[in-house]
């Protein structure tokens, strides 16, 4: 048998789906999907032990193409579905894939409460600064003065910092990656899947059709080059002066702490209640014995 070039990704794609995929040419969702598949392949997880849950949006189309357990759910509600899956099958590696609007605007409440509970799941937030699928409306992460269909003269709303939001809400692993740095993104996703507790990874991606065209950011290659030139690691950011840091994307692992996980606490509660019941059931006999 002849040797075949090792392209790991094709082993994980669904063969009965229509390819090329539905995303626009040069959309970074495909690159991030590749990074995600490489991370799972490096972890050597079985396909049956991985569950991808997604909401609605461009990035949420991702689970459709990969051969894991997948769930394509309502707009903004992938985290409640994932919570249910995780509580019913705690051995599953649950990965939630949402967009910036899906996670912070429409499902914002679910997002912060999943972080608060510290339930063991990985939330990948694909941040492309806009609602790409519905035609380019401004999202909570559209930059100040960024032009969108609903803000034709520039957005005046301050921007959500998803990483700070997640840390404030109580997530135990918070990191930011970009679509361009594929090896680093794979490493961060791998660490996030291993971590016990809510892991939030914000992945900066691009949308040259809805956001890039209106803001004159160029085509797919130019927007990827912007991510390459304007992102710095945490170590580099500490050395820079605060004035030079403006407009830069800081990537790396911001926050990592060990805290009791929700499924374990729930199981411990169930066990303790069952233990309490048995002595109660046995107590009448003891009373009889005392008599």
């Amino acid at each position: 048998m002849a040797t075949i070039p090792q392209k790991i990704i094709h082993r994980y794609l669904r063969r009965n789906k229509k390819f090329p995929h539905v995303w626009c040419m040069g959309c970074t969702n495909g690159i991030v999907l590749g990074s995600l598949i490489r991370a799972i392949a490096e972890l050597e997880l079985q396909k049956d032990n991985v569950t991808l849950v997604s909401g609605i949006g461009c990035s949420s189309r991702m689970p459709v193409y990969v051969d894991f357990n997948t769930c394509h759910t309502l707009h903004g509600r992938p985290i409640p579905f994932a919570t249910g899956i995780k509580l019913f099958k705690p051995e599953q590696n649950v990965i939630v894939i949402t967009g910036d609007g899906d996670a912070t605007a429409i499902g914002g409440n679910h997002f912060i409460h999943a972080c608060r509970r510290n339930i063991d799941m990985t939330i990948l937030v694909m941040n492309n600064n806009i609602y790409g699928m519905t035609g380019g409306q401004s999202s909570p992460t559209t930059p100040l003065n960024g032009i969108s269909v609903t803000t034709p003269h520039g957005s005046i709303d301050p921007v959500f910092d998803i990483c700070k939001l997640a840390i404030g809400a109580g997530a135990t692993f918070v990191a930011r990656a970009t679509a361009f740095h594929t090896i680093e993104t794979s490493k961060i996703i791998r660490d996030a899947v291993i971590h016990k507790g809510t892991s939030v990874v914000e992945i900066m991606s691009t949308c040259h059709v809805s956001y890039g065209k209106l803001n004159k950011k160029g085509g797919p290659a130019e927007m990827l080059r912007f991510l390459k030139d304007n992102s710095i690691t945490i170590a580099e950011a500490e050395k820079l002066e605060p004035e030079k840091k403006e407009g830069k994307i800081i990537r790396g692992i911001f926050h990592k702490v060990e805290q009791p996980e929700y499924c374990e606490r729930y199981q411990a509660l169930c066990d303790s209640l069952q233990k309490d019941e048995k002595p109660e059931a046995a107590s009448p006999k003891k009373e009889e014995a005392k008599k």
Partner: protein
Amino acid sequence: MSVKPVKSREGIIILDSEETENLSDVEIAVEKVSGDYKKSPVFYYYEWCKKCGICVAFCPTKCLGRKPDGTPFVAFPEKCVHCETCDRLCPDFAVTGAKR
């Protein structure tokens, strides 16, 4: 499933039906173009390519080129350093970088 004869680099090999079931379309296509592939360091699966130009823009040694309609191709195979940047950055999984 019928048994597909697949041409490999050594010649025509008839794969067992179980073996072809485990292969994706791309892998079978890679096997079919064995002759050219052996010379070229990068294999393009043009049926999936959307001509976005990311592989050409980020090639560190500029060994890839674009035809007038945007189709990428390996212009200078001898310049390739097997970094697999094009493989990792392809959004459509259409590029397979060969290991050295």
